[in-house]
């Protein structure tokens, strides 16, 4: 029983990590339809930000808290720069965007290697986040890892903040207007260029936050972004492009599915099965879990 509950929690926590790394993409890919392969490197930038801050801020807890907003700004700025320099030239050419940003990703990885060295770097986690919380005591205790609980909380907070921003603020309204009808938004006096830039800033900034969270559970190195990027895209695609709730549901479903399969088979087999399940699902619902029905041609 505790094994099953523990495994369910594991699934949810894998889902939380997936959600956090995919959340930024729900803006840049989901809303703006930009396949940004350098998104993984923005996650990396967030993680390295944590590492740099720890060198100047003594307490591991404090530096982690400070790292969240700073990483948001650093990765956000990188994203805005990328949008301004390259992506705005490529809005109607999705595959070109993919290939160009892949080139950017190669360069950012090499840059990280030259600045921080090829080996992984180390960050200290605050002690409260390296242990676990006992939920059911006894011989066979059920424990939840506190780092995972922190990431789950962070993911939920980020989702709430993002959906409130999109729904309630003038900026959010402008982003949604541009997404739904770029030309109409333009003639209604919205500067679509600036909205694109802001949306990209926020989306990439969220990647930075994901990077901070990943320092608690994974390695911090030049290639850390490439390890997660495809999973993140899959969450958005399966959830339905432009659908925040779809991404949330899919992240947790995939997390639980993966943890169950990992437990009953092996990690490799689980990975293959999850990917095959996704391909099969997209045959059934090619537009993902949630779609907006329109009468447009495409």
């Amino acid at each position: 029983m505790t094994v099953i509950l523990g495994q369910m929690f594991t699934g949810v926590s894998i889902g939380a990590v997936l959600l956090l790394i995919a959340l930024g993409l729900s803006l840049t890919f989901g809303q703006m339809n930009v396949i940004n392969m350098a998104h993984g490197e923005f996650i990396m930038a967030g993680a390295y930000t944590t590492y740099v801050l720890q060198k100047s801020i003594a307490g591991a807890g404090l530096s982690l808290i400070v790292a969240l907003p700073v990483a948001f700004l650093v990765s956000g700025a990188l994203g805005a720069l990328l949008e301004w320099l390259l992506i705005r030239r490529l809005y109607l050419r999705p595959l070109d965007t993919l290939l160009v940003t892949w080139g950017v990703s190669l360069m950012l990885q090499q840059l990280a290697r030259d600045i921080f060295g090829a080996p992984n770097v180390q960050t200290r986690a605050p002690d409260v986040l390296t242990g676990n919380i006992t939920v059911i005591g006894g011989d066979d205790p059920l424990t939840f890892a506190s780092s995972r609980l922190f990431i789950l909380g962070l993911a939920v907070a980020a989702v709430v903040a993002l959906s409130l921003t999109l729904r309630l603020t003038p900026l959010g309204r402008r982003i949604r207007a541009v997404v739904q009808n770029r030309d109409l938004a333009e003639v209604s006096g919205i500067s679509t260029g600036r909205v694109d830039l802001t949306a990209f800033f926020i989306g990439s900034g969220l990647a930075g936050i994901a990077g901070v969270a990943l320092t608690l559970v994974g390695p911090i190195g030049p290639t850390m972004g490439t390890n997660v990027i495809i999973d993140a895209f899959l969450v958005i695609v399966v959830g339905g492009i432009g659908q925040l709730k779809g991404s949330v549901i899919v992240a947790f479903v995939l997390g639980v599915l993966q943890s169950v399969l990992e437990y009953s088979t092996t990690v490799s087999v689980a990975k293959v099965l999850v990917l095959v399940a996704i391909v099969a699902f997209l045959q059934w619902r090619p537009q993902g879990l949630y779609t907006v029905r329109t009468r447009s041609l495409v």
Partner: protein
Amino acid sequence: MAGTAALAAVVALSACGAKTNSGSTSDKAAQADTSGDTIKVGLLNSLSGTMAISEVTVRDSLKLAIDEINASGGVLGKKIKPISEDGASDWPTFAEKASKLIKEDRVAATFGCWTSASRKAVKPVFEKNRSLLFYPVQYEGLEESPYIFYTGATTNQQIVPALDYLKSQGKKKIYLVGSDYVFPRTANKEIKAYAKANGMTVLGEDYAPLGSTEFSTIANKVKASKADAVFNTLNGDSNVAFFKEYKSAGLTATRMPVVSVSIAEEEVKSIGSQYLAGQLTAWNYYQTTPGAANTTFVKAYKAKYGQDKPTSDPMEAAYTSVYLWKAMVEKAKSFDPEKVKAASDGITFEAPEGKVTVDGASQHIYKTARIGKVGTDGLIQEVWNSGKPIKPDPFLKGYSWASGLS
């Protein structure tokens, strides 16, 4: 069009060379370029991609040895000129670059490779061209290429002693965790055979894809198994995630120690002693290994690359390999690979890990096995060693339990 095809067919047919099994393979081994007052050697390491994490340090260490040798007069009066190539963590690229070093640069010997996959990819290249490769990383054994010198440990110098150690500590139930590639799978096969013969039980065996960083399920499984110890053959990034998850699951080095065979000082530094303190490693060298040779090596390395840079077993094995090659060349009085090979048996070197001796028959080296414990300072302290260098036995012929393995 048809003309082109016909032309090509004619050219192709007229150009056919030797058949397989005809026994008359061409005798055009690439000749090393020994003119000039320098001698070129190849450094073949991944400088980009996932494996760069580890292999860059090996390249640095090779360069240190070459600089030292050049400063003291070179080899046979020639300065060594290193040609560095990037294997890019991609096996076919390794093969391509190995070819380039041998055929284009005409190097006298090549140093490098890390993963077994990259070694397997270049092995035929070195064999076909009769050129020498010095391979500095511990590996899964079961291999003896006539053109490769293995200066890292084979299984009976690392894994078998680690199992002996666990057995002597009374750890009977073990759990195997590894990356999904050749070394862990082969090593685990050997571990299972050993366990069967020595009254130990293997409670579980899990593999994660290379580069995988999601280990919460594996940590759960390990925890649920209630094993005495974990034998860890994970590689690279995965180790970081695994140990963070291990600690989060409430597993400790005192209750369930993890013996790792791919975690050296460099990895300890990137994972953090916060997560690793008290865990065990199995190697032939640590930065803390006593001896004058090691003191000099560590001091020289830090002087060249930075005080915060640790030294590790593969780095040491790489460093040693250059000196071994120098000694072989000087004994043979020639850079010719065949003569170097012939001269190799019995060559010794006071390496940072202690005295090593080349076993000419297997082209491996005698090495002392050392079990270490990670300290809170991030250094690894030796807790046990084999007392004397162990004779390399890549096919485990001297172990009756291993008879069914190869």
